[in-house]
């Protein structure tokens, strides 16, 4: 199945431009465990060291996957902008724009299981439960808002820990074979650049959702016809659905 391979290539180009501008930091996922918090915990603003992608800030979060070998650099973190643990955040709460992309290497994807599996891995982030870390996400708007407490920041919580905790969750999913991350905290403009790449991904996910959840649909009157026509994976899902309906 191929739904996002071209989007992954565009993300690579984005990273290469940042590398050329010397603003890309490549890190490795930390396998050191971070203490668990209470589910659904709220970090109040008065306890917050760093806030990422708040409703008042630019924010984008999405996920892409591929089965193709070599497209995903497993355990790699691509960070553009400051890390959470930087010492300058020890004073007042710092609010930053936030972009996050999770790139996954999957296996065994086909037109029958793509929707359910995509949904399964998209929801996996809600299992994240880290002490001093609050995350709220609106997948309908591709937004993710998080707060890191002063205590967690003082204790050295970083994107490597966050990615490590996410990777631990993804590693429990049998069809995930690799994970790579992009985190952007540098500027509103950089997050917007990432968001524009996410728009294509969002349309494809919406098309996939429509095909999977609507009992009957007519391609002639569907808003996603052009999108499906352009993506091989969606075309095969469409054919499969038509076969089942006939």
């Amino acid at each position, binding site marked *: 199945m191929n739904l996002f391979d071209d989007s992954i290539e565009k993300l690579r180009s984005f990273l290469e431009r940042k590398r050329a501008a010397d603003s890309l930091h490549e890190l490795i996922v930390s396998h050191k465990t971070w203490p668990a918090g*209470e589910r*659904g*915990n*709220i970090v*109040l*603003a*008065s306890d917050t060291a760093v806030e990422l992608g*708040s*409703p008042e800030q630019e924010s984008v979060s999405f996920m892409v996957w591929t089965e193709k070998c070599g497209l995903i650099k497993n355990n790699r973190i691509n960070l553009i902008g400051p890390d959470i643990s930087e010492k300058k955040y020890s004073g007042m709460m710092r609010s930053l724009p936030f972009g996050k992309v999770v790139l996954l290497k999957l296996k065994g994807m086909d037109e029958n299981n793509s929707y359910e599996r995509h*949904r399964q891995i998209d*929801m996996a982030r*809600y299992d994240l439960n880290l002490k001093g870390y*609050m995350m*709220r*996400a*609106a*997948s*309908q*708007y591709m*937004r993710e*808002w998080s707060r890191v407490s002063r205590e967690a920041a003082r204790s050295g919580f970083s994107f490597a820990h966050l990615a490590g905790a996410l990777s631990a969750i993804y590693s429990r999913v049998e069809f995930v074979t690799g994970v790579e991350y992009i985190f952007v905290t540098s500027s509103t403009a950089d997050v917007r650049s990432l968001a524009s790449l996410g728009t294509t991904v969002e349309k494809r996910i919406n098309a996939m*959702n429509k095909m999977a*959840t609507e009992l009957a649909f007519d391609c002639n009157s569907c808003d996603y016809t052009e999108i499906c026509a352009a993506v091989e994976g969606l075309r095969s899902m469409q054919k499969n659905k038509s076969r089942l309906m006939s």
Partner: protein
Amino acid sequence: MSGKKTKAIISLCGKGGVGKTTVSALIVKALIEDPSKRVLAIDADPAVGLATALKINVKTTVDDIRNQFIELLEKGGAGDRDQVLGLLDYEMTGALHEKDNLAFLSIGRSETDGCYCQVNDLLKDIIGAIAENFDYLVIDAEAGVEQVNRRVLEKVTHLILISDLSTKGIKAAETIFSVAVKAVGFDKAGLIINRVRDQEEMKRITLPSNIAFLGSIPEDSVIRNADIEENNFLTIESTPAYEAVKRAMRALGVAGFNTTTLPGEGS
């Protein structure tokens, strides 16, 4: 008890105009004076008076979120149940107005026609989950506690009935109490008589025998002026009405406040 850490969910009910909002604001003031305690104030009165008393500029109410969500639902863009929960949690956390150890949530006025019971239940579940992050909840309610039960939380721990000296106010408090006994879960309840000029006035009224009397709050020019001038109740200095509210809290036996010292009274 709803929360993992929540010590008390205090709901204030009573006839309109008896001073529920004023007493709610003073309770919030007493609770937040201990900076180690997290307090969530919920304005469940559509008049949004508690926000005014606490000088909070409400940007988004729970009903705004409900209405936006219903619109999204009708367009078919809400997603499945888990995605819906994620979105509502995101929006509701964003609707919290924060001031140090105080967070504030406004319920707003329900204006959407039609039955959206599932949406209301989801919102109530999320309010419950948010509440678990706080030591104390103070709910400034509409007249009856059943509205709290329907739109905010299933159960309160402490029900405070407020009345002025009027027979109408006291009768309303009795009615609210009898409804609460039948329809709403609570652990403790009590009655406060507000705006008493002198104790001679108290002798002229008959208190209900079945509701614990928590005390009276004197008519207080500082409070009156704060109301007239829309001052922030959180910055009011110690005043007889405030001290009376703290005594009433103690009489009600709110968990963690049963000792002789209340937050704001020092050690």
